[in-house]
Structures are given as structure tokens and as C-alpha cells.
């Protein structure tokens, strides 16, 4: 099971945080601080895995943004790395050539995409098309709209 996902910049600024298990604000702050210092101090050509307490931290850098995913000890590190990769692909498909600024200014969209992809710390849907279709369907909701026409697209 995944425990949390953090996105932060090279300067250590948090861009997105998702906690899959209940935590207090204090714990969250402590973890965020630990993660940024640990990950940012890694040397180049090191592996993408870290130990933190009894968890494993999988991180990957995309341009100026670091993705950092914590998983249980018995989980598979490589597949976690691909979870990050798939999330980036989903963002890329939605925003079109995604960059850090897209995520900064539209972080709620990044959250919506994440919620369609992962839920409660487990994979929900791995198909790019499916995730994007449900996000787009929700995006097009209008006030008072009965929204029938795109339901056909989404669920049909």
C-alpha cells in the first residue's frame, strides 16, 4: 500500500501532497521536511530508493520537479517507480506537455487526476484513456447541467 505522495521543487517547495493514511499536521510537516532534505541531498547516479523508518521512499525527478512516493516495506519498488511514471504521463496527457507551472497554477486538477488514478493508497485505474475520460467528463459539468451527452462518452 502507498502511504503518501509528495511533489516538490528543486528548492524544496511543496507542490502537491496526498496522504493515504491518517496523519497529524505535525507528522505531515516533519515528513515533508525529512523528504525534501533526504531526496534533494541525493547524489546523481544513485538509485531511486530510500529507507525512511519502516517505509520505502521511491523518488524520481522530472525537470525541476521531484515526485516522492512512500510505500510499505514489502511492496515492489520498481512498480512504484512506474506508478510515478504513469502519473506523469496522465498529467502530460491532460495538460499537454506538462511543466511545473501547470501543476502550480492548477494543482486542484492534478489532485483530481490523482484521485482517479490512485485511491486510498491503491491503484484504481491504470488505463490512460479511462482516467482522462472521467476527468474530462467532470470538467465539463455545468451548473444545472443534466450532463447526459458526455455520460454516453464516459460510460458508454
Amino acid at each position, binding site marked *: 500500500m502507498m502511504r503518501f505522495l509528495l511533489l516538490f521543487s528543486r528548492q524544496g517547495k511543496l507542490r502537491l501532497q496526498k496522504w493515504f493514511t491518517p496523519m497529524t499536521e505535525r507528522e505531515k510537516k516533519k515528513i515533508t521536511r525529512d523528504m525534501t532534505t533526504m531526496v534533494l541531498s541525493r547524489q546523481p547516479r544513485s538509485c531511486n*530508493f530510500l529507507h525512511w523508518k*519502516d517505509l520505502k521512499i521511491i523518488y524520481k525527478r522530472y525537470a525541476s520537479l521531484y515526485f516522492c512516493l512512500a510505500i510499505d516495506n514489502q511492496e515492489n519498488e*520498481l512498480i512504484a517507480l512506474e506508478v510515478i511514471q504513469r502519473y506523469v504521463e496522465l498529467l502530460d496527457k491532460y495538460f499537454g506537455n506538462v511543466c511545473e507551472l501547470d501543476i502550480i497554477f*492548477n494543482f486542484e486538477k492534478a489532485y483530481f487526476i490523482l484521485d482517479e488514478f490512485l485511491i486510498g493508497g491503491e491503484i484504481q485505474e491504470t488505463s490512460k484513456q479511462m482516467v482522462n*475520460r472521467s476527468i*474530462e467528463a467532470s470538467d*465539463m459539468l455545468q451548473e444545472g447541467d443534466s450532463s447526459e451527452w458526455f455520460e454516453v462518452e464516459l460510460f458508454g
Partner: protein
Amino acid sequence: MSDVVEKTLTALPSLLSLDSQPGSTKLSSTSKLGTLIRGITELTSKHEEEKLIQRELVSIKEQVSSPNTSMRQMKELMVRAIYCEMLGYEASFSYIHAIKLAQQGTALEKRVGYLAVSLFLNESHELLLLLVNTVLKDLQSTNLIEVCMALTVVSQMFPKDMIPAILPLVEEKLNHPKEIIRRKAVLALYKFYLIAPNQVQHIHNKFRKALCDKDPGVMTASLHIYLQMIEENPEGYKDLAASFVTILKQVVGGKLPMDFNYHSVPAPWLQIQLLRILSLLGKNDPSTSEIMYEVLDESLRRAEINHNITYAILYECVKCIYTIDPKSDLLEKAAKCIGNFVLSPKINLKYLGLKALTYVVQQDPKLALQHQMTIIECLDHPDLIIKRETLEILFRITNAQNVTVIVDKMLEFLRINKDDYTTIDLVGKVAELAEKYAPDNEWFIETMSTVFSVGGDLMQPDIPNSFLKLLSEGFDSVEEDRKLRLFAVDSYVSLLQGEPGKLPQRFLQVISWVLGEYSFLREELEAATVLRLLAKLLDMKNTSSETKSWVLMAMTKLCERGAGVSVAQEVSETYSSSLDTVLRQRAQELQHLSRHSELRARVLPRDAGLEPLEVDSSLSFLDGFVSEALAAGAAPYKPPHQRQEELAQAKALSLEPYGLSLPISMSSCSIADRQSPTLLSISSGLSGESPDLSHKGGSSTLKLDGVKRLWGREGYLAQREPVEESARVEVPSPLRSPSQQGEADSSHSQTPIPTPEPEQEKQQLASSLFVGLSSQSSVCLMGKSEPTPQRFRRKAKSPGSSSSASEKTSNSLVSTPSTVDNLMCNNLLDSNITSELVVSSLEQTSQLSQGLAAANGTCDAELTDSDVKGSSPSLCGDNAVAAADPAPHEDPCKDLLLTSHLPAELSGLSHSEITPLCSNQSLDLSASHVQKEDSLVLVVFIYNSSDSDIQQILLELDSEEIEVSCVCDSAVQEASSHSVAVCQYSLTVKTPSVHVEVVGTVSYQFPAGTPQSLQFSYKLPLTCFIRPLTVSTEEYGTMWLDFSHDTKQNLTLISDGQEPLAATLNVLKKKLQLHVVEIIGMEGIVACRLLQDQPCLMHCRLNAGTLAVWLRSPVPALPDCLMYHCQRALQEH
């Protein structure tokens, strides 16, 4: 969907929102959020940021509480509040508005509301209760997107207590025509299962339906639940193994829609999930494993694309293959696969390869040998994570020969490591290895000193505790103990003379204790010197008050006379006015005891650590006090659990037949390392007999020399050397075929040969690291126990048991019918030894040599005889009476003959198999026990195998745990030639123990001869003394509260298809003669009694796939012993 439509769809949202929602997409940089974000980036200091955000929060707060704010504005405000919280500023005032937004907004606003709720709150937050109604409404909405939102938020967080309110609606969604809704409903149920498994127990059959869903997405979602349930109870889902295999086959075969592919690999997440489930189901289960082999083989074969995702699957596959029942050709392929990982230039794969090696190295140590050069390289890797993982492998392959090198490497790592968690973990491992394999005293003390200095005050407190315990309890050799302690004293004195200020507090405490206890061992060391060194510790400013009290206690032990007393007086004066009450107390003790040397000698006798401390656990010395208090009107004492129960009863009306509420913590007590204390003492007693232990310790320095001598054989195997070939051949490995060995060799030789200079060094390192591995592996594979010379073997707890184990001239027997044919041979050997020992110990004069010869003579004959019998177990018959027959010239029907000698009143009852006890050339003793309803009768048959009559046979039985009373009229008997005399004894348990043993002596006399005697012992499991106890549920309830001794444990459930609780209790009833009082739903109550009339009650409850058992009795050790037998009975089943 066609490409054109798709593109339009992608473009649409931004087009639409351009008109209506200028703040929500790419152009949002012009919005208020955009302004805020840009404002922050322009700031230069943290302080300015704080000011800006606080201003922002004030303005948000104003707006959200204004009644004029529309929901659309609210949505925008929520996004800004989320942003502020992400930056670490609290915006708790907005939480309630987030809930309101989710409740009242239109779908688009609702979505932001739900998002804000899921980011702001966690499942224990009280505001979440306000969301329940909204979720209920949305679950019933006709708008599918609203239903999706509700299900999404529910599967992220939902108050546990409110699950019943929405459960029917979520359940209903399992039948929804749209797969996305079904999928989300399954995930919501998974969440419910995790937080409240009992709530969803009734819908397990619906999970099965989800597993069979026609949509692969729904099926995949249901696997999360199955993985969880199978992890908790693999036995319950064996029937699904074939289905999982079929699904995996289809996935691997590419039968799923292309949509599920990831980088052209079919549904990797699904594959990995299935592999995990299979490894759980196949573990220790050959028949289930059997059906997986084919698909595992195929998975290995299909994973050929060079991509991370393929390796992820391969890794899981390898783990599965090594977890399930082994199959040689799969293991071979898996091992090769691990090789690919380890040798990969990609560092992530190397890391996983090391992890896989760690996982399999215990089963297949030769794999580590194969990759030794890679391991050595990784040991010097600049990435600490890789280094750490390599140490993990080394930890698993440590033995007495390579321990010094491996511990060295670990300590080296510890010195550069900065992560506390790793330090704690690694320090524990070093301490474990040091205790297990230490080659000599100096090394052990020095290593532990490093552990204490590096581990500091972070390490687990049990490390110093067990170290001190080890020192004080000592080992088998008094001289070794003395040397070890002496060395510790020497090394600590020199540490204190150096710079003690740098040492961690825990280490100082250890040092003070050791010096206080043992510094007298070094005679030339004056107590005053030690006292001065200790006093110096008190003066250091960073010494904690806890350490100070350790120091003061040590000083109290040392201040004997002369100069020491003055130092002690000085110190005690300083601290007797300390503000710290503990320190003051210690100082007072020091002051008084240093003045009165006589009192001191009585309170703190020197070297008292060796004396076992008698603890009156019944606290009987308080009886007077208690009865006085009771007489004065105090309330009687109630144990905590009873108080809890009464509290629970007082709170709510209990619908249970009796007030039982098992605390939840019970499920957490682990079953693995819990053994009955009585059993533990038995096993430690046995391990205590190792006469050559000190010898092994003494020769340890030679071991390192051995490394060099064995160069190339057990150590580094140089490439293409003929030696290597021979070494490989020498190691028998039944698991690996010759062809595979060839392969292994070739893969081994593929490794490039680096420059010779550093290579030499590495080879040397390899030889010292991997020494002893190959021989060890052969031992493991042969299935024998590993004869590692463990230096610091703990001394037996009770000296009595260890001595009796070696002195006992007996064939102690645990009568397990299934091993009868094996035991027969063993018994025979034993009984010969027995007779020899007996004969010699009795100092027989003239008959000695003759007797020995005779005994040995018959020995050979007996062996062959019993071999024949052992190979045909059918001879044993149903009641297994054909146990070993010590008298070869006897007719084979002797057991039948003995059976016929059973006393008439017992012949109707079933008796245990007749077990030979001991024999010599003239007498032949066997015994059997008969279970009567309210007693246990031991029948001893004395068969006179000589040609003359024997008179004055006197049989004496004795036991620590049992009270023996003779049933027959006179203990003295006669037996004429080739006839049988029978003695009967009635046995009652005095102190319960897992197995009870009766030791006996038979003395006899030939008409014209000296008196002779024979000794024997007879072992019985406690279960022989257990009888059912018939009580009603009400009686049970009252008894339960009265009993004070209890134990709790989780036991494995037996599920033979029927109701697991009833099935398990039935097994216990059959095997242990328990009485099942009642089964009420998930709980069962059982009663039994130990002869005579000592009841024991059992309460069991189904809990997460295991049986939570709670035993209570008025007899102290009884619950523990019975728990052990319950566990055994269920394991054997």
C-alpha cells in the same frame, strides 16, 4: 472513441472554462490564486511570505463567512485555502465551508468541496460526520458523476461508525450497469474492510461476484480485498487458487483489451497483484503450488522486454517461486533471473537484485557465493542505500567463521551513517551476531563497546540489558566467565581513564554496573581507584541523573574499606542534598552502607549475580497486610481484566451469556515466539549439555588461520581454477541439476576480470566473507540441524534439569505414535547406553566386564532385529504395541503377553502403547499408562528374562511434578524365570508442566547374588491428565471471574470446509478431551479440569482469521501448558 472526438474533448474544457470560469485552467495565472502564487515567488524572505499568507488568510476568512459569497466564489476561495495549507499555514476556519460547498454546490463546485474535505480532514475528524448526509444524497443521485464523487470520497476517508448508514447503498452499486461505478464501489468496500472488517463480513460472496465481473477493471479492484483477506487467512481461500492461476494465464497471454497495457506489457499491476496472492496461497502447500508452476514459468518466459515494468514483474515472480513449494527447474530459472538483476549496470535493478538475494540466501546460500564479487563491489558503493542492502545479505550469511569481517563492515557503515532508524536497526543486528558467533572474549567485549558507543542512547534498551544479563548469568565454564568479566573490567577501566565524556549515557551505565559487580576480579586494581574513576563521571556536566544513580549504586557495591570509604563519603555528602529524589536515595544508601561494612556485605554480597534470585511471585509476604486491610473494610483486589469487564458491564447492557469482552489488543500478541515457559526451560536444559564448549572457545583463534588454509575451497573461488570445479562437486546439492551447475559456472565466468591489484584485495575480502558458506549450505540442504559452535550459549535456567539430562540413564520417551518406527531404533541405542551406564555406575565388581560384553553382544543383534521391524510399520498394529523389543531371543508376541498382564480392572480401558523403559541381561522393564475417568494409572511390567528367579524386586518412583502413590498391596515383588511382575501406580499432577516425567529405580536381587539396580524414566504429556469438565454456561461465567492465572494467544484456525470455529474446537475436544460448553456466534467457551479437580477454562473467539484463545485457571502454570498443547494439537492436525 475516434481520435477526432478525443481531441475535441480534450480541447473543450479549456474552451468552455474560458468563458465561464476564468480562474480554473491554464489562464488561471490571472486569477486571485495566480496573483497569490506570483506574489509569493517574488518574495525574498520567509518572513515576508508569512506576512503575505496571513493577510491572504484574513481576507479568505472574511469572504467565506460573508452571507453574500456565492458558491462559485466559495469554490475559488477553497482552492486558495488549500494552497495556503499546503504551504504549511493553518486554515481550519475553512473546513466547515468545504463541507458546505460539497453539500450545496453544483456538481462542479461540489467536486472542489469534496477535494478540499479530503485534503483538510482525516477520518477521525469530527466534522466529517456532517458529510455523511451529503454522501448519502449523492450516492442516490441520478447524475453518475455525483455518484462517482461520493464513492471517491468514501474510499478515501469515512467515519468508521457511520459505515452502516451508507453500506446498503454502496453494496447496491456493485450491481450497477456502469463498470466505473462498480469499480469504485468495490474500492469503497475495500476501504471499509480495512477500517472495520466486521461490517462487511456478510458480503463476502459479493466480493466473489466482483472477482468474476466481466470488466477486468472491476476484477482488478476486487483483488485488493482478496490480497488482504488471504494475507490474514490463506487457508480460507485455497479453492480460489485455480481461478487466480487462470486469470494470470489470460493476462500473461495477452487476452485483456489493449487499454490495460502499460508500455506494451499486459496489465502489469494486475499481474503483480496476482503473483502476490499466489505466493501467499502456495506457501507451505505443495498441492496448491503444483497448479502454479506452469503459469510462473510462462511469466518468466514472457517478460523479455528490457523495461522497468518487466523487471518489476520478474522480481515478483522470483519472490513467488522462492516462497511457494520449491520446484527445481523453476528455482534454477529464478536464480538465473536474480543473476540478471545483480549483474545489471542499472543501479535500481542492482538494488532489487541484492534484495532478492537477501530474500533467498537462507534457502540457497550458494547463490550468494555465486555473486560474491558483485557483493564485494556493492559493499564499496558510494550510494549508502546499496551498501546498506549489501550488509543485509551479509547479515543473513554470517557464521562463526566470517563473523569478524562482517561485523567489521557493519561497524564501518555505522560510523558513516546518519539515519537514526538505520542505526538502531543495524546496531541490534551487530549485537545479535556478536552474541551468537563471537570468536573470543576480547572481540566480544570490544565489539559490544563499539556498539554501545555508536548506538548511543538511540539503541533499543534490550541490547545493554541482555548484554549485562549474559555477563551475569554466565556460561557453562566458570573459568570462561571469569575471563570474560575480567576483560570487560580491564577494558572499561581504560575507557574511563581516557575520555569518558564522549561516551553515551547507556554505555556509562553498563560500565558502572560491570565495574560495580566485577572489578574485584582484578586483584591488583584497588577499589579506591575505581571509585575515583566513577566519581569523575558524577562531576561531568552532561551526565544524566539516571546515569548518576547507576554510578552511585556501583559505588555502593565497591566502598569496602580504606581509601574507598572516604571517596564514597565525600560523594554521598554532595548528593544527599540533591533535588533529585532518586539520587538522594542512592546517596543515602551509599552513606549508610559505606559506614557499616557488615550490613553492606549482607545487603550486597559479592558476586551475587550468580545466585539465582528467589522471587516470591505470589507475594505471600503481603498476606498479613492484605487481610488486615480487608478486615478494616478495604475492597478486595481485582485484576485489571476483571475491572475492565465490570466497567464494560456497567457501561452497557451485555447481551453475552457472561460478561466477556476481549480487549482488541489480544489479536496483536504474536504466536510465533510465544512458548510455554516450562517448555523453554526444558529446551535450555538440553542445550546446556555441551561438554566441549570451552574447548571450542579456546581454539577459536585458529579459525582465521583456517581461512587462509582453505583458500579457494570455502572462500573465494578463483575463476577457471581446477580447485573451483572440485569445490563445486564436493558440495552436494540435491536441488540443482548438473546442467544448471554448468550454467552457473558460465554465468560466473562472464564477469569481467578487473585489474589485478585491487582485485587481489577484493579476493581476500571475499574469501573471508564467504568462508564456511558452501559447507553450511550442504548441511542446510541435507536437512540436518546446523552444528554451529555457538560460543555464548545461555546457561540452563535450572541447574537441576541440565544435570539430570546428562545423568539420567534413561530412554526418555515422548510417546508419539506416528514416529514409532524411528523411535524404535533410537530407543534401542539409548537403552544400551543406559544399561552400560547403570552397570558402571553401580560399581559392579566381578560381573562388570561380563555384563558389558553381554550388553554389547545383544546390542548388535537387537539393532538388526529392530531395523527389520522398523521397515514394516504395519507390524505395529492399531494400538502400536510393537515397540522396540530389547530381548531378541524372545518371541515377537511379548507385547501381547504383556498386555495380558494388565490388571483386570484396567483391561477394559484403553491403554497407551507399552513402552520399553530399560533392560539389562536379566530384567526387562516396560510401562504403559491407562487413563481412567478420575485418575491416571501407570503400569510397570517387570519381565524376568534370566533363567533364575528374582526376589526382592523393589520399584521406587519419584517425580518433581507428580505425586505418585502405589496402588498394589506391596511394593516388593518376586518374579520367577521368564515371567512378568506388574506394579501399579496412581499419578496426580502437583505442578503442571508441558511434559511430566517420572524417574524410577528398580532394585532386585538374585537368590544368590549382590543387590543390583536399574534406573529409568517415563515421560508423559500433560494432556494425559486433562479430563472434560461439564459445566453450564452460567457456572462457567461465575468460575471465569474467580480465576486469576491466565494466558492469551492467537492460534491457527482449522477450516475443513465447515464452520471453522466448530471444526477447531472439535479437534481440541478430540485430542485434548476438552468439554465444549457452548458456541455462541463467533465465540466459544470450553472447560476442562486437571486431575484432581483443578479446572481450566478456555474462551475462544474468531478474530481476523485466527482463533484468539484466552485460558484461565486457579493453577499457576496450567494455562500456559495447556496453551502449548492446544497449539500443538492444531498444528499436528
